[in-house]
């Protein structure tokens, strides 16, 4: 399944690149758009297969040998760029996911246990409000507050960031991406529904009847499984959110790389990013499955 999915994903990405008008190899050909035999000759000279599926298969073959090719724009090996910016983006996205969960789970669980309480309503509403604001606007606002009002660091200082308050400069986008981008309200809603559903299960009533602590019986189905599912289902979206935040904070990550590559139609880079993103998504599913099997004794028999 995983192999079939990865092949499918890269194929779709390649198809879109191919379907686009113009020649993705124009950059290699010195900016000229050639046609007919002239192009074929140029392709042959560069060792590029003539047909699009030939190109796809060639790319695929190289990837299977660990060769992701060279960026058309920078001439750097794609693998190196991918690893460098991927690590930074992973820090950003995983960090922000933790922030989302840390904020949303208590709110969702509280709202499920006390559906009628005003505090729960206020907390839920604030989560909704934060989620309903555009991330980049929040980002600008945060930068304004920290640079102009507090003067903690100079405006948009570029790649490395300042030495002083470096941790804050790194934490800011993480927190922002965690709170913004709509994930917060979604997780709050999901956790609330799941906890409420599990609280109404018959076995939870049994737990009440025997005088046991309810959370001990609720947390597995009501919390562990939903959280694993959220993590898995959020994986496809973290990269998307990262593009915006990386742009705002000048964070040289995968998102910016993707944005740049899409504009330049730097196909080796795009293909590599697509593949990497798909791998991360599959890893998320595996994690979900692993938690499911660990928690649910039935799973290994299904």
């Amino acid at each position, binding site marked *: 399944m995983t192999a079939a999915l990865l092949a499918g994903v890269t194929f779709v990405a390649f198809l879109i690149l191919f379907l686009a008008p113009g020649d993705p190899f124009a950059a290699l050909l010195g900016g000229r758009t050639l046609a007919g035999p002239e192009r074929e000759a140029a392709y042959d000279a560069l060792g590029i297969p003539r047909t699009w599926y030939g190109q796809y298969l060639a790319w695929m073959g190289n990837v299977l040998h660990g060769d992701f090719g060279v960026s058309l724009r920078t001439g750097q090996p794609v693998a190196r760029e991918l690893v460098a910016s991927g690590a930074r983006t992973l820090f950003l996205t995983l960090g922000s996911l933790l922030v989302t969960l840390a904020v949303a789970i208590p709110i969702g669980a509280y709202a499920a246990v*006390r559906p*009628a*309480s005003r505090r729960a309503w206020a907390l839920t509403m604030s989560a909704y409000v934060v989620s309903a604001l555009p991330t980049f606007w929040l980002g600008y606002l945060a930068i304004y507050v920290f640079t102009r009002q507090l003067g903690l660091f100079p405006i948009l200082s570029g790649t490395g960031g300042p030495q002083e308050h470096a941790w804050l400069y790194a934490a800011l986008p993480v927190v922002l991406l965690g709170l913004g981008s709509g994930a917060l309200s979604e997780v709050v809603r999901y956790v609330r529904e799941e906890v409420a559903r599990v609280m109404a*299960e*018959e*076995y939870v*009533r*049994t*737990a*009440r*009847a*025997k*005088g*046991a602590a309810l959370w*001990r*019986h609720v947390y*597995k*189905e009501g919390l562990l499984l939903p959280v694993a599912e959220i993590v898995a289902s959020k994986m496809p979206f973290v990269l998307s959110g990262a593009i915006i935040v990386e742009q705002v904070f000048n964070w040289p990550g995968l998102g910016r790389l993707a944005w740049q590559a899409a504009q330049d139609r730097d196909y080796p880079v795009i293909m590599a990013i697509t593949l990497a993103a798909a791998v991360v998504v599959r890893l998320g599913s595996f994690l979900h499955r692993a938690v499911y099997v660990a*928690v*649910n*004794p*039935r799973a290994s028999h299904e």
Partner: protein
Amino acid sequence: MSAPPLLGIEDLRTYFYSRVKQAFIRSVDGVDLEVARGETLGIVGESGSGKSVAMLSVMGLVSAAPGVITGRVIFRDERPTELLAGLDRLVTVERRGDRIVSVVKDDRAWQAQAERNLDGVRGGKIAMIFQNPRAALNPFETVGQQIAEAVRLHTGAKHPARAKERALHWLEQVRIDSPRLRYDNHPYGLSGGMCQRAMIAMALAAEPRMLIADEPTTGLDATIQARIVELLADLKARLGMTMVLISHDIGVVGRLADRVAVMYGGRVMESGPAAEVLGGQGDGHPYTGALLASMPREENLQAKGRLPAIEGEVLDTINTPRGCRFRARCQRIHDGVRARCAEAEPPLAEVAPGRRVRCWLHQP
């Protein structure tokens, strides 16, 4: 009068608020019951008669829903405890006649007070088992863990090894086959009958004073039902357990109960010794008689091969009629009492020692 009953329920009422109908569903509507030490009280009734809700109310297991529970529930262990104490302060009930028309209730404080009242009683002094045991056991934990939890919560055996030992003891008591193996099984791996045995073991593991069994055989296969009934009878004899048995299965109640209460539309219609009430002499409440007659048994077949059915539908517990609740379906009503039945609800009056019937036919 002999020793005071272990559990006394006086005028218990449990009303749920239905948002869809914007009205109160009077699930339990003035129930008085007593359970003496060592006896088994069977509660018989059809769905919607309030038999389960009454005992769930005693256990504080319905308080989460918007509704109201009033009355007195006294549990006399070493000293009497009132299980609904202090709850009436937290609600304002507006009545029109005998009908509740509005309730203002501090849900959170109510919940907290109910939990305080039941702390140590629920699960410890009074244990409860449910129907559909496979869904009622936690599917994510082994049967053994769940029983050991009850041991640690309510008995002196706090150490895990000691708790496990006690749990295994109780698994043996319910005669589950190969208890050591079952200890590490999850509920899904067990048959319905084995799950019910495990659930009984879990309830007993707390060494309670009283066991409430809510439809313990419903949904199990016939051959398995017989085994569970046999087990309960055996435990009752060996441990001298006080038990409340709720069931729609008159056969099961007849086998296990010493005394029986028959409920209809949230009310007790008849109570008394099991042999007399379910004996089928036709001298009790018309509802009990009709219930016994409609069971699919050979002797109930009429000449034409028809079963004697109770005509009409189960009582609407929102618009309970004035007068006797069973009046509309009663087959023994006659012109001599008709007016009286329509006018006022009969009291639950003693017709013989220990036997009470709520029917005008039995009252001069």
